[in-house]
């Protein structure tokens, strides 16, 4: 066999030569990546599986809106929106390589509505370094809006968690001044952001918090933490948790602990359908308070509302989407803003122009948000949505209380 040696060597040299030549014809210059004469490619990572899989439908709803725009308006200025969704299982260790894939291999124009505080934090430096817009992340962690100065390619959309927590703090002080507060929060930036907002707004009354317990994203359930909170004689419980642990908690409080605290529930788990699942699992759902800024598809008062009608038309484009799921109208609403930005950009479809419009020139009345809620950014204010309204659970659905509370300017 030895005499075949030189042949192999020649083949090896040839391959090396091929290898050496192949690299020359790399990417040709393009005014901006991900835009062609008839398409705009957006990328997204979201939890289609794993502990936060309930959120997965958001991306499908967003895609439904893009399909609607492509079909009824021929896209944006003649360009159809293509939307590539990848499943990161709510695990930053997967978000990072998937985002690299979308940016470097699929060559997306921008990342849109990537979900998860931790997940989006883990790719923020990368996307900013690459100057790829990380637009309207599906997390309310305050940092995404607040730190626009240092991360100028990243912007949130929904009201910041700290602002929401401020509203709860005010509500507790007004309605339950002697409350013994217990907090269940997810042990990451998202949970801690809510906790910070609550503690900040309580100020010198922060000692009302008698116990706070955290759970890990990968934990099977938060039952041990709830038992500990119960043992500390908590009478007002804050749930800063994603849908799955929230449903587990609501059911366990009633069925496992026979406990009836006043409950404040973070908005990221409050769609009516999830409350319904909790009720069927045995949750009593007494004295539950949350906040809203989007129209609830299960609320009969929007039956003849134009925005709600449009939502129902749009969501018909998604065969797996439950029309009643509040996460779907969230997806459609944020996709509406994205299309709005693309329309405003007109023929100047560059990454820099997109981020400039999104961060400082938004002035939008979004038909899927509660009446009066504005999506608004200026050169000095990069928090797109800042108004929310308190809601309480009436046994079947949410009831809007009082009027819109504007937190704009409270977070610097």
């Amino acid at each position, binding site marked *: *066999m*030895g005499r075949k040696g030189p042949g*192999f060597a020649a083949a*090896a040299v040839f391959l*090396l030569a091929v*290898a050496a030549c192949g690299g020359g014809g*790399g990417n040709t210059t393009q005014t901006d990546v991900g835009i062609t004469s008839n398409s705009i490619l957006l990328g997204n990572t979201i939890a289609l599986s794993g502990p936060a899989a309930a959120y997965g439908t958001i991306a499908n709803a967003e895609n439904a809106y893009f399909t609607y725009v492509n079909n009824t308006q021929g896209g944006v200025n003649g360009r159809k929106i293509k939307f590539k969704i990848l499943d990161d299982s709510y695990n930053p260790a997967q978000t990072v390589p998937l985002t690299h894939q979308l940016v470097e291999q699929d060559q997306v124009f921008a990342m849109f509505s990537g979900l998860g505080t931790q997940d989006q934090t*883990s790719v923020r430096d990368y996307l900013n370094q690459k100057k790829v817009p990380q637009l309207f992340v599906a997390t309310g962690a305050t940092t995404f809006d607040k730190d626009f100065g240092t991360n100028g390619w990243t912007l949130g959309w929904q009201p910041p968690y700290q602002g929401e927590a401020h509203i709860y703090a005010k509500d507790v002080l007004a309605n339950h001044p002697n409350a013994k507060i217990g907090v269940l929060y997810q042990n990451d930036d998202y949970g801690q952001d809510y906790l910070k907002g609550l503690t900040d707004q309580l100020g010198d009354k922060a000692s009302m918090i008698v116990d706070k317990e955290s759970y890990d994203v990968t934990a099977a359930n938060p039952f041990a933490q709830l038992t500990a909170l119960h043992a500390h004689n908590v009478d007002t419980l804050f749930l800063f948790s994603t849908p799955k642990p929230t449903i587990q908690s609501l059911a366990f409080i009633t069925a496992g602990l026979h406990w009836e605290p006043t409950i404040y529930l973070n908005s990221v788990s409050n769609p009516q359908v999830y409350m319904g699942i909790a009720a069927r699992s045995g949750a009593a759902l007494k004295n539950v308070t949350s906040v809203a800024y989007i129209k609830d598809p299960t609320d009969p008062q929007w039956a003849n509302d134009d925005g709600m009608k449009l939502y129902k038309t749009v969501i018909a484009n998604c065969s797996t989407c439950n029309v009643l799921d509040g996460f779907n109208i969230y997806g459609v609403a944020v996709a509406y803003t994205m299309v709005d930005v693309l329309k405003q950009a007109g023929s100047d479809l560059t990454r820099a122009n997109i981020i400039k419009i999104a961060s400082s020139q938004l002035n939008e009345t979004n038909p899927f948000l509660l009446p009066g809620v504005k999506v608004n950014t200026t050169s000095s204010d990069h928090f797109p949505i800042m108004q929310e309204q308190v809601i309480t659970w009436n046994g079947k659905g949410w009831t809007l209380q009082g009027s819109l509370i504007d937190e704009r300017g409270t977070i610097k």
Partner: protein
Amino acid sequence: MNRLRTAPPRYWLVVLAVVLFLGLPTVTSSFVASEWGQALTLAIAIMGLNILVGYSGQLSLGHGAFMALGAYISAILVHRYHVDFLVTIPIAAVATGLVGFLFGVPALRLSPLYLALATFALAVVSPSLIKRPAELTGGVQGILIPQPDPPPFAGDAFNAVTGTAMTSDQWIYYVILFCTLLLFWLAWNLGRRRPGRAMRAIRDGEVAAAASGVNVAGFKTLAFGISAFYAGTAGSLFGLSIGFISPDTFPVSLSIQLLVGAVIGGLASIPGPLLGAIFAYFLPIESNQWVPSQTWIPDQITSTVKNAGPAVSYGVVLILVMMFAPNGIVGLVKAGYVALNRRLRGAADRETGQLPPDPQTV
């Protein structure tokens, strides 16, 4: 020259493989290079496992934990103390090797079944353990590792060959490739020298090995230490390549993935871990993308594969490999090569009119 001429064909295969891996980043995109870089880090870890399982006959279900240790040592040194990443690789490797050695002292006195359980326990607790000292490890938030720019000499050389600027992913790929070659060469040397023979003797018969004067406990512990050294290097490089590590980067399933890779590639061989790693790394990625795109597969199966991800494809492939290639890919190729050689040689002998050698006289 005579040595070159008489070199067996597998040496030329090694040269070919090295040339292919060296040339890869020049023909593919930077992203593909980083994927292959990560596959190579798995190859290093699997080689470590191969030394332990294949050569010395110990079972470990906890090598993911050693990878985590290596990765965190590097990441903490880079993040907190601003040490150059390249410097942290040997530090992480040696420290992890030391920990593996110490872990091996008590653990290897356990019988194989209990050793498997002890190492499995290590893999299960490590994500939770990492979360506790949150100031040091970043807790659940993990640590971002800035990717280093290529040094001028590498960038210039790459530019001279391809005409494009070298990205950090491509530079990291070459760093990983260098470590892989070095560690595979070390493993090859280890395998055919005294320690390797001692380990195999222990694997094949502990009592017999002890009777022949082999220090059984000593070599078992050594194998564990070396194995952890490899895993630590792999972890360190893995973190560098991804640019972010968190406790969930190193789940229990990673340890299983490594073992599956070692078995599929072929135990007690040098190319086995490389093939196993390519398999273990690309199988879940490809199956996740391939299965949903096939319309003939029923929707229910598609959604199961999508949700259970790698587990389903691993299961199927592992069963097939165990049925049809119990010695892994390398075993299959070897058996095929031997059979082919026999046929070709027989045919050649008939054509030249020479009689094949009489089997009884050989």
